[in-house]
């Protein structure tokens, strides 16, 4: 329109100074946008990498919180690498010669259910929950000397679907959120002396939230062994 006005000398000529300003402004804006896009195109890989790194970092922080719960006595006492469960905050061997048995539920005559009922028996100090049993050996979180495995080792085991009953990230989250024996850890009842059993270091809500952050980050495991 501007070029035409110059050629024709029409009334539009009077608008030429304003039109030039508009053209310059538009040009500046377009150049700025182009430069911006160009810069963004160069910068975006780093930005995306930064997001990934931040997400992974957050996931690893969340995993350490999850790990702190998994290795607390309420959880790890039934995730042994041995032929027996443990009991107590000192994680001593379960008394009465209790053994794992073929299905992690003891043996006939000496089953977990021989004492552990569907709920805690606070009057006698025997903890209870639905389907009381040991975790499978594939989910052992201790070594043969009853020492907790490293954060890396537990993380790798718990994310290995060939070991964890084929649970993916959402499956692990659901397990931590809903499984009766997991939830029992936060309602462990009274010891035989009447005192309350100690709880894991996080609340169940915090544990689930940490698991969710870890899962959303792609269940990252720490580097190393």
């Amino acid at each position, binding site marked *: 329109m501007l070029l035409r006005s110059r050629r024709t000398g029409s009334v539009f000529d009077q608008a030429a100074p304003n039109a030039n300003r508009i053209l310059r402004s538009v040009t500046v804006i377009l150049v700025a946008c182009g430069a911006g896009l160009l810069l963004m195109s160069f910068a975006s890989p780093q930005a995306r990498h930064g997001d990934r790194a931040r997400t992974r970092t957050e996931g690893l922080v969340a995993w350490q919180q999850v790990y702190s719960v998994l290795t607390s006595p309420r959880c790890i006492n039934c995730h042994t690498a041995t032929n027996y469960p443990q009991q107590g905050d000192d994680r001593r061997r379960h*008394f*009465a*010669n*209790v*053994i794992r*048995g073929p299905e992690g539920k003891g*043996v*006939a*005559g*000496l*089953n977990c*259910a*021989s*004492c552990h*009922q*569907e*709920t805690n*028996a606070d*009057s*006698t*100090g*025997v903890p*209870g929950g639905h389907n009381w049993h040991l975790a499978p050996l594939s989910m052992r979180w201790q070594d043969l000397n009853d020492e907790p495995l490293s954060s890396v080792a537990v993380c790798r085991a718990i994310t290995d679907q060939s070991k964890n009953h084929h649970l993916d990230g959402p499956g692990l989250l659901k397990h931590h959120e809903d499984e009766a024996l997991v939830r029992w850890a936060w309602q462990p009842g009274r010891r*035989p002396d009447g005192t309350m059993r100690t709880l894991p270091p996080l609340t169940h809500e915090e544990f689930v939230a940490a698991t969710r952050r870890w899962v959303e980050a792609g269940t990252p495991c720490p580097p190393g062994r």
Partner: protein
Amino acid sequence: MATYELNVNGQRKQVNVDPTTPLLWVLREELKLTGTKYGCGISACGACTVHVAGIATRSCVVPVSLIGDRPIVTIEGIGNDPVGRAVQDAWVEKDVVQCGYCQSGQIMSAVALLKTTARPTDANIEQSLGGNLCRCGTYVRIREAIKRASGQLT
């Protein structure tokens, strides 16, 4: 206090007891079934073993309120079961008992074992009866009697 309907040795029994009362004391004090013994009171010795829904159960640590409608079988009723009868006969035949205090628990655990493992090995026996203590040391005869009963049943 609360009232509970229990199925004991195939019979319905009603008891009015504190909900926290261990099953052992309901059997012994309320129902006068004194064949089940009090040993340690913490499920460490096995003398109080009965069957609850077929599971060998330490009755000294299970409050009566947690039994529900699951059938209970005690040493007084186990002889009505073919496996229980065979075990008791073998116990007599092998003259297992010395003082006898732990033996009702030993028999209840042995029956539970034989119901799942018809031909138990020495290891099976030691594991399954590992929670049943005998201060008289009748373990060798217990093992012989279990194998005798196994032979009679298979």
